[in-house]
């Protein structure tokens, strides 16, 4: 009995030693366009994010042992692809800001750093104070909102064109994942509205009849098959009276619930159409992974950020 036990342990040990030889390469290329932020912000990023989201991955001895090492390599490659602080300045400025707000919200939601990572690297956890430093830093970047003549005239010009029916698109655009623009969105009912001071926009979130019925009947966990949202974004346009109205139309985004068809993105089909020309967003059909990555922390509410305003039954 004891002998059998000994042999089994020996076999396992040999296997363990053999798998150490299988080592995918993980290099640290030079950081050519690193993020430039104040020291107190930088130190938090380095401590909590850099292992997976920069070219300066700091492997501890226990990260180098297989099978853990395979997971580490996979996470780092994935992490660098999504967000890389060492290549930061290669991104357009507005995208940089949007990425930071998204990253902070992933942290606030507890989705980042990955719990599996902080379980082993406890020093990477962010304290309340760390989160506050990041919040204050981002808030300091928000431009104060004032009346702006050119914003106002751009809004008026677009409004005039729309009123004259000269913004009609000739054919229905289709996103690379096959989701077509839905012209009926503007007849849908309101789910909610939001003012986004992080990026100077305001939004109307509308729902198709299936979504509205589900809200009324309290059947939104999960949302039913066919429920569809349109999130319409406008530039903020502050009037001389201090009221901020919807300025230029920026884009409309759709979320379509179909558990089978969109199984790879948690049962939701995503599409975004930009400007009044409704230009489909995305360079490849895989663009929706970007959408679901951001929505992932909202698993509890079926990956939907918007809490609908309750309707009486």
């Amino acid at each position, binding site marked *: 009995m004891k002998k059998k036990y000994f042999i089994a342990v020996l076999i396992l040990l040999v296997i363990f030693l053999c798998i150490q030889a299988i080592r995918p390469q993980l290099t640290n290329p030079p950081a050519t366009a690193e993020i430039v932020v104040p020291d107190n912000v930088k130190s938090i990023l380095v401590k909590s994010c850099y292992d997976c989201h920069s070219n300066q991955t700091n492997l501890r001895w226990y990260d180098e042992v297989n099978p853990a090492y395979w997971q580490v390599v996979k996470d780092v490659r994935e992490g660098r692809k999504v967000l890389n602080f060492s290549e930061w300045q290669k991104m357009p400025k507005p995208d940089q800001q949007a990425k930071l707000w998204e990253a902070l919200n992933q942290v606030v939601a507890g989705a980042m750093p990955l719990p599996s990572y902080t379980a082993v690297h406890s020093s990477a956890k962010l304290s309340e104070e760390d989160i506050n430093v990041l919040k204050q830093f981002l808030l300091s970047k928000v431009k104060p*909102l004032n009346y702006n003549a050119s914003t106002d005239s751009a809004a008026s010009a677009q409004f005039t064109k729309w009123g004259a029916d000269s913004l009609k698109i000739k054919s229905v655009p289709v996103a690379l994942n096959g989701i077509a623009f839905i012209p009926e969105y503007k*007849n849908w009912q309101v789910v909610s509205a939001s*003012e*986004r001071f992080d990026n100077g926009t305001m939004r109307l979130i509308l729902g198709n009849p299936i979504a509205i019925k589900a809200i009324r009947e309290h059947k939104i966990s999960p949302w039913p098959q066919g429920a569809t949202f349109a999130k319409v974004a406008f530039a903020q346009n502050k009037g001389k009276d*201090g009221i901020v*109205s919807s300025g230029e139309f920026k884009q409309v985004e759709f979320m379509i619930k179909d558990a089978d068809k969109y199984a790879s993105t948690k049962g939701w089909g995503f599409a975004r159409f930009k400007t009044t020309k409704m230009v489909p967003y995305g360079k490849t059909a895989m663009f929706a992974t970007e959408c679901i990555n951001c929505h992932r922390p909202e698993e509890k509410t079926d990956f939907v950020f918007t809490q609908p305003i309750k309707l009486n039954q």
Partner: protein
Amino acid sequence: MKTLTKLLTAILLFSLCACKQPATDNELYNNKATVPAKFDIVKSGLSVLNTSFNPTKNTISILYGNKLAAERLRTADHQAKQGEELALVTWKRQADVHWFGANIPGELQSVEIVKLSGENLKPKIDYQKLLGPNLEQERDTTGQQSQANFILSQRASVMP
């Protein structure tokens, strides 16, 4: 050894259950912003025309209107016509717990309803304001005319 296995299984099962707690009603819905049945927007047949917010008053609003109003507010035509109906719903702003960087409707502050009747060239403007989460009729009539005019002179949000 057996005890340890049992203990580990228990911890594992518990941690899986902990992640799978269903969302509560308050997590799913924005209950604070509920509009009472007295004014059911969906059933009123009015459609959404625009959204705005007021940083000074810390409010966020959505304007609704019937077909006649919707058609006029798409253009710069300020001559309101009989048969138009508009409703401006205003909430206090609250921070969006799901997104640091956003504000969403909070407690309901008011519903203002403007209805036009009579003749087209000189329509009669009927204005009423319902206040607070229970939508109680406002008795104070000062400033009603200017508020009605403010609502009638709105522009629709561009939704191509």
